[in-house]
C-alpha cells in the first residue's frame, strides 16, 4: 500500500498547476497539446530531452487555449479554435503532453471519445496526411497512488 491522499487533497495539491508560469494558464498563447505514438518516456525524460527527441513519434498538436480548474478537475476552456489536426505520421496515438510553460510539461494517456483517458480524440488510429480531431483534455485526479 502506498500513501492515500483524499480526493480533495489530491485535487487541491494539483490546483497550483494552473497559474502564472506554472503548468497551465487560464489562457496562454503558449499553451500546447502535442500528441505522440509509441511508448511514452516519463514526463521527466520528456522535459530533459525536449520535443525534438520525440520528433519521430510526433503526430500533431494544437495551441492557444486556457485551462480551467474547479474541485480537483482540470479541463480546457474555452476549447481550442482549431480542433482538426493533420497527422504527420501513421500509427496509434498513445500519449500526449500539455503545457503552457516550456519547461513544465505534464503527460497523459490518449483514447477515443468514450475512454477514461486524460486526452480524447475522435480516433487514436491516424494516417499521415489525414485529419484527426481533438475532443478534449480533462483531468480529475483521484487520491489513490
Amino acid at each position: 500500500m502506498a500513501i492515500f491522499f483524499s480526493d480533495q487533497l489530491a485535487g487541491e495539491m494539483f490546483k497550483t498547476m494552473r497559474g502564472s508560469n506554472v503548468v497551465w494558464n487560464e489562457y496562454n498563447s503558449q499553451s500546447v497539446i502535442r500528441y505522440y505514438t509509441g511508448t511514452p518516456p516519463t514526463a521527466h525524460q520528456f522535459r530533459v530531452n525536449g520535443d525534438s527527441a520525440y520528433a519521430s513519434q510526433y503526430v500533431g498538436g494544437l495551441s492557444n487555449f486556457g485551462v480551467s480548474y474547479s474541485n480537483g478537475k482540470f479541463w480546457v476552456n474555452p476549447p481550442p479554435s482549431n480542433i482538426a489536426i493533420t497527422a504527420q505520421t501513421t500509427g496509434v496515438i498513445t500519449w500526449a503532453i500539455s503545457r503552457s510553460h516550456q519547461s513544465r510539461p505534464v503527460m497523459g494517456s490518449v483514447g477515443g471519445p468514450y475512454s477514461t483517458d486524460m486526452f480524447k480524440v475522435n480516433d487514436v488510429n491516424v494516417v499521415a496526411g489525414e485529419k484527426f480531431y481533438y475532443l478534449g483534455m480533462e483531468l480529475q485526479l483521484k487520491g489513490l497512488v
Partner: protein
Amino acid sequence: MSFFESSPYAHASVSSSLNSYLDHTNTVILIMSGTPPTHSEFNSGDYISSKYASDGTWGSQILVRFNGNGSVWSSGDIGGFVEGRHSAYTNNIILTEAEGTGVATWFLICNTQSNPSSTYYRCAMMGEVGEYGDGKELEMVDTNIITGNKYQFGSLTIQPPYRFEW
C-alpha cells in the same frame, strides 16, 4: 491503461500546496490500530474529522494523537532537483502520551477544521505503519503502543507521486 504524469519541475508547484492544507495548528497526525480503511472508505461517507471522533468509524482505533503545533512542514523542497519533497516536524518535535493500547498499523494526517464549507475539511492522507525494514510508509522502532507511554514524532518526508494510473 489511463495515466497522468507530471515532471519533477512541474511537480514542485503541486507539492508546495501541501503547505496550504496540512500546515496548520489544526493539523493532526494520528497513529491508528486495526485494519486501515480502503481508498473508497477513506474518501466516502462522513467527513474525515467525524470519522476519527470518539463516536466515529475510526474513533476506537486511535493510539497516539500528535496535534499540530505551529508549522507542521518545514519550508521548501529538499534534495536539489528532486523536487516536491516536504519534511515534517523537523522543528516541532512533539512528545505525546498514547491514549490507546494496541499495535500501530496505519496513520492518518488531516486537518481538524470542522466547517463543512471549508476545503480543508476533506484534506487528508494516510498510509501504513510498520517497524524498521518493513517497507511501510511510516516506520517505528516498536509498533506496540501502550497507553500513557510517551511517543515523539521525529520527522516525516512526503514526496507526492509523479504518476497517477486508473
